[in-house]
């Protein structure tokens, strides 16, 4: 299977382990990723806040590249996903977009990575690849805001209670817990502009994961991962607690379950330790 691929800016920097794990896992599953040639920033958090038209134009440029190829487009970042879907809606409606004159075909779908991996690969194929089932790993899956919201743009079937990662991780053998914070907000870029507010939101998620009986949180968005993973020290300092909950990309755990040898390298990039837990569970 060959599909188009828009990594997005974070995957080149702070979320390198997401990029590397996603690409490895795709390869193992026989999916050929064609990175959009010369892709540019989708505008993410800042384009639409500054100007509606600029926000749409920055994202639309990339959707047009994908349209010319005509294959489904895989997007690993939740914010990129929503921006590209928003631009797609404008292009489909035939609205005028600054700097773009192009006759849009629209014969392809834009898919967030969590949905793509759940839908494109059958349970049978996934199970057949598993060398090391994630038995004993108690997890909650955290989707954040923009994988599902707003559903009139994302097309999410179940925006308040998405299931894709839950199902994927269950197939790989993890014990996935129910919790009602799957799509609550981690604060996004408030971590830079209003850090106190963001830290409170992050703390709530960490607390609720623990209350649900999870010893790790599984995510599919670079912003969520970064907020949850890199602030635990500060939150411990401010609250006198001792927060140390591993925050995994779902693709890292797929790699682990498939026995991909680079998994250790990806996990070394996390700020909150992941290895003690995995060793304790006999997974590393």
């Amino acid at each position: 299977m060959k599909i188009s691929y828009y990594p997005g800016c974070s995957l080149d920097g702070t979320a390198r382990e997401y990029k590397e794990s996603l690409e490895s896992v795709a390869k193992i599953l026989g999916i050929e990723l064609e990175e959009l040639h010369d892709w540019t920033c989708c505008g993410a958090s800042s384009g639409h806040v500054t100007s509606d038209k600029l926000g749409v134009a920055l994202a639309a440029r990339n959707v047009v590249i994908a349209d010319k190829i005509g294959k489904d487009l895989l997007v690993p970042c939740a914010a990129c996903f929503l921006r590209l879907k928003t631009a797609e809606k404008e292009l489909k409606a035939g609205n005028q977009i600054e700097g773009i004159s192009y006759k849009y075909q629209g014969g392809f779908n834009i898919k967030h990575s969590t949905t793509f991996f759940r839908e494109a690969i059958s349970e049978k194929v996934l199970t057949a690849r598993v060398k090391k089932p994630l038995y004993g790993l108690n997890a909650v899956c955290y989707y954040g805001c923009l994988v599902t919201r707003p559903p009139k743009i994302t097309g999410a079937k179940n925006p308040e209670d998405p299931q894709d990662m839950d199902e994927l991780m269950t197939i790989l053998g993890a014990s996935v817990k129910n919790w009602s914070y799957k799509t609550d907000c981690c604060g996004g870029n408030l971590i830079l502009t209003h850090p106190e507010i963001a830290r409170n939101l992050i703390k709530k998620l960490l607390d609720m994961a623990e209350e649900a009986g999870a010893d790790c949180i599984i995510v599919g968005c670079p912003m969520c991962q970064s907020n949850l993973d890199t602030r635990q020290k500060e939150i411990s300092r401010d609250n006198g607690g001792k927060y140390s909950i591993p925050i995994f990309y779902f693709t890292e755990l797929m790699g682990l379950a498939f026995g991909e040898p680079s998994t250790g390298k990806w996990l070394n990039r996390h700020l909150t330790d992941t290895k003690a837990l995995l060793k304790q569970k006999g997974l590393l």
Partner: protein
Amino acid sequence: MQVGGLAQTVAPNSIFRKQVEALSGETISACFQCEKCTNGCPVTIAMDIAPHKLIRSIHLGLKDEVLQSDTIWVCASCETCTTRCPNDIDIAHVMDILRQLSRSQGVKDSQKNVPLFHSAFLTSVRWYGRLHEMTMAVIFALKSEGMTGLAKQANMGVEMMRKGKIKLFPSRLLAGRQVKAMFRQSERRQKT
């Protein structure tokens, strides 16, 4: 009604509502004050005007109160309100429009970090075609708090660098020119 804790008598005026409706394409006047937006909002605790009151304030024409509120800068764009509004008002999009309007009117000091963040982000995109996180973080730190800001971010920066999470040099793209042109076009439009 009360806005930001201050009781005042308001003579309703539809000019501002019509302006926001025209810019956003949203029907503000459909709001029946059910408060669903506010009840699902994760950051009301830091807002001076709760989301449903903000919508009501637009309806009443309280332009200055709305555009100078903390609310529009504290909003995390989480899209919960938009998803849940029974009248299909895209409140998160209305927030974007209000932020765009507010910038040209001058943002109050206590919230100026947010527009500074967004302009640091877009500066990096304009220069390189893609966001270069380190460039963005340095510009933001310097512009928001000068050297103190830079020192504050430095610890996290060093730790991330140690973990191989920092990309030191931005990518060079052929498409850089196209992106610059989009920015220029957007500026020209805003001037006219």
